[in-house]
């Protein structure tokens, strides 16, 4: 039996959705109902205080009526049947819909739940707090220069119910992440920090911290006390999976969201079936990837999760869609219609986006670099789908000299350049695939949980 743990008000409303759909479909060519509840918990433990807080919850209903030209929506807080029936009547009665025949869709029915081994909803808050305290305790005394250690645990519990004329779907998606932040102060009072995160669409089983994980974070923070600024220029670079994923996310992730094609904002629209990178480059988006932080079973527009091959052997194949852009561009849909929450519209958004692995070993790749930079850790990125410029900022990177990584550290490091040039320069791809969880915005808003990753890449890029 699937343990959906649907909020009671959602569970009680679900049987009435057929009737609400009927109301909408009396006038609208296409009509759907989404019930969405997102809540969670944040625990913060540091050297001086502790906090347990609710993550700002959202719970509401989206009624969507679509006529092929405009998507009309009414979004209401909560799950009150009377209010929703009234809103559905008002929504469709006030609109003169144009004639439109939606693309037929297969029947989609089912209830889906993220597989977890240690279910966060079955652990008490006290148990979770104690686990955070234990990690904090293990990290805080490792060096006298540590002035603070922060442990931050986030738990996101998402429930959705979606119904249209061919779908009756429900899902419970469970996401967790945990950050360890080590803050150190140097002799001159300079403050530096390093961090490490673990995440997944999973339970506490993915939040295990080894002593090596902790020490690596402490060592990273201490090393930053003597970091230098890099001399700007073009370098041979090896990226870790996290940095690779950020490059992927900002270039052929955002750059292939097809609502941006519709808005003439994406240069990729002119490159379908054309070469955009070295033959070693394969990029995919896959919301069905088990355990990754950006996973789900169906998107916020009721499309079932499945992988999309975006770049195949260096050739751009297709983008990722929401319902509206797929209909307007007359292209097949992918399961990427996502909302920040019920109060916002759905856009074409990424889920788990990654470079496919290759065949090289990391050791062989490092040995190929006489003078270059090993980019250890990303801190942020920003898209430029129209200009195909790239901005990825790395928290730090190490020097590579004579085929070996040295102790010389540079921070922060910005990667810039023209996306196809960077992708064309890739000459080796490692045989691993690792994913980092995070939050993605559309421009400067519309935050959704995603993951990005890949293997190590050997490439050429401008650093500054």
């Amino acid at each position, binding site marked *: 039996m699937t343990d959906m743990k649907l909020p009671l008000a959602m569970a009680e409303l679900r049987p009435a959705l057929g009737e609400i759909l009927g109301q909408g479909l009396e006038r609208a060519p296409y009509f759907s109902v989404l019930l969405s509840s997102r809540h969670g918990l944040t625990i913060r433990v540091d*050297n*001086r*205080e*502790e*906090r*347990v*807080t*609710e993550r700002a919850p959202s719970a509401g209903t989206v009624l969507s009526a679509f006529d092929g*030209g*405009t*998507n*009309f*929506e009414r*979004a*209401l*807080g*909560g799950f*009150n049947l009377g209010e929703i029936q009234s809103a559905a009547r008002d929504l469709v009665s006030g609109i003169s819909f144009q004639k439109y025949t939606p693309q037929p869709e297969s029947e989609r029915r089912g209830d889906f739940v993220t597989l977890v081994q240690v279910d966060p909803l079955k652990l008490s*808050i006290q148990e979770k*707090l104690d686990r955070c305290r234990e990690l904090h305790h293990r990290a805080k005394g490792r060096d006298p220069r540590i*002035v603070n250690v*922060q442990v931050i645990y986030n738990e996101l519990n998402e429930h959705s119910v979606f119904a249209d004329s061919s779908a009756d779907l429900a899902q419970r998606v469970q996401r967790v992440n945990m950050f360890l932040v080590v*803050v150190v*102060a140097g002799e001159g*009072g*300079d*403050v*530096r*920090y390093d961090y490490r995160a673990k995440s997944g669409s999973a339970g506490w089983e993915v939040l295990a911290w080894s002593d090596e994980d902790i020490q690596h974070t402490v060592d990273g923070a201490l090393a930053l006390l003597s970091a230098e*600024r890099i001399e*700007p*220029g073009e370098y041979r670079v090896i990226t870790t999976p996290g940095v690779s994923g950020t490059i992927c996310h900002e270039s052929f992730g955002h750059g292939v969201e097809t609502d941006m094609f*519709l*808005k*003439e*904002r994406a240069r990729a629209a002119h490159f379908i079936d054309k070469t955009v990178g070295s033959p070693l480059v394969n990029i995919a988006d896959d919301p069905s990837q088990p355990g990754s932080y950006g996973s789900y079973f169906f998107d916020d527009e009721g499309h079932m999760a499945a992988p999309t091959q975006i770049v195949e052997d260096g050739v751009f194949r297709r983008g990722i869609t929401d319902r*509206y852009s797929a209909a*307007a561009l007359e292209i097949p849909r992918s399961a990427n219609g996502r909302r920040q929450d019920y*109060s*916002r*519209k759905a856009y074409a958004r990424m889920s788990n986006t990654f470079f496919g692995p290759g065949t090289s070993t990391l050791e062989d790749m490092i040995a190929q670099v006489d003078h270059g930079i090993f980019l250890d850790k990303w801190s*942020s990125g*920003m898209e*430029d789908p*129209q*200009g195909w*410029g790239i*901005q990825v*900022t790395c928290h730090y990177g190490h020097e590579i000299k004579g085929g070996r990584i040295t102790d010389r550290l540079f*921070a*922060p*490091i*910005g990667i*810039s350049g023209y996306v196809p040039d960077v992708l064309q320069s890739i000459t080796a791809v490692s045989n691993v695939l690792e994913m980092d969880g995070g939050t993605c*915005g559309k*421009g*400067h*808003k519309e935050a959704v949980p995603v993951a990005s990753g890949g293997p190590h890449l050997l490439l050429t890029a*401008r650093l*500054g």
Partner: protein
Amino acid sequence: MQHFVNQIVEALKERSDLSGWTVRHIQTRGAQVYAVPQGIESQRAVDNERYIIDVLRSTSTTDGSPAVGSGDASLLPGDDIGRAIDQATLVAGLVANPVYGLPGLAAFPEVPLCDESLQKDASTVMWEVMERVRTAAAKQPDVRLTAAECFGEVRNMHLVNSRGIDAWQESTQIDIEFVLHSRKGDRESETFDELSRRRVVDLDLEAVIEDGARYTLDSLEAEAPASWQGPVVLRKSALTKFLAGGSLNGSVIQNLASASSKYASLSQWEVGKSVFRGEVKGDPLTIWANRVMPFGAASDRFDAEGLPAQRVELIRENVLVTFAASQRYAEYLKIPPTGAFGNIELPPGSTPASTLLAEPYIEIVQFSWFNPDPITGDFATEIRFGYLVENGIRKPFKGGQLLGNYMDALADVHWSEETGFFGSYFGPHTARFNELKIAGQE
């Protein structure tokens, strides 16, 4: 649903195990209009209503010293009040932090926060704003509007706490973003802009779109910049991003001047000492955190804790005067509580803007995303679009990275005597940073 607030308050008053509580009833209603080149992509009406309960509970540390724990819970109308309070109280009992309290009753200033037309009919107003955007863009030759989003929201908050605060505030918020696109042969360019204001009248859409159209056309001619070290000018929206941060990140000033950062040892600033690590070569820096700015995007009458809005002098002529502090961190650091940060305000400079534009200089019009490290202030940020200005010629460029450190940059800057209001920032509209580095093509 005033009745429901009263029910929550009465239930909280009966809890002898709580040392303090706050209830916020937040109602929002809004309209959203989205345009694509083919027409209106989507129109939405959005309502939300919720109640947030924050509680404090006396606890003790492992050695028996008095301590306090906090907990919170959210409710939708009609939810089980007792269960929510139990949950918040349970959580509060799990932690033992140094003792602090809640703000007491205070006079709340009257801060203008509302657009009356939006209060009356958000949907009609946002349609009108969208039409203004489309009309203004249509007047620009060789440029097309390819995307626009217009959001308007009316927000009401009623706050009650156990120390006698019982206060209301209403505010409006308008968020606009748009994209202008141009094409010449096989070259394409676009500019993205966004505005957040309280009132429609403060949206200078036509001027912003005219500027955006010029940048879009100039961007068609732009090449990658050469490397540069020297004066860099920021104006209006680019300067606002630099000083006030954006929707994704606060500013470095906001972080380093916050009492919570100080308490967590993330800020090394000290009251009474310079905020700079070296010599100040430019104009002295004075900054206010201002929540009483009329129609400021981050203004309010009171913040989420119930602390009244005020204009706080944070930095006076390079010296830190105080930290921006919530009640909790004010008590921890033994400084006056100031409440949420709010808007950022700088005094006028002493130099005419025209003098600050002495050639040669680089003007950065748009960053990809100006996101300096919030603790160290170091930045390496891509430039989306700018100009090299020399010999009377404005040569457009795109790409390259601005490199430096936030506080070092502020230690060598001159501010214009002309000021402007930019939503969350009020102050000089032009700044000339005397010595910044841009990594461009060799």
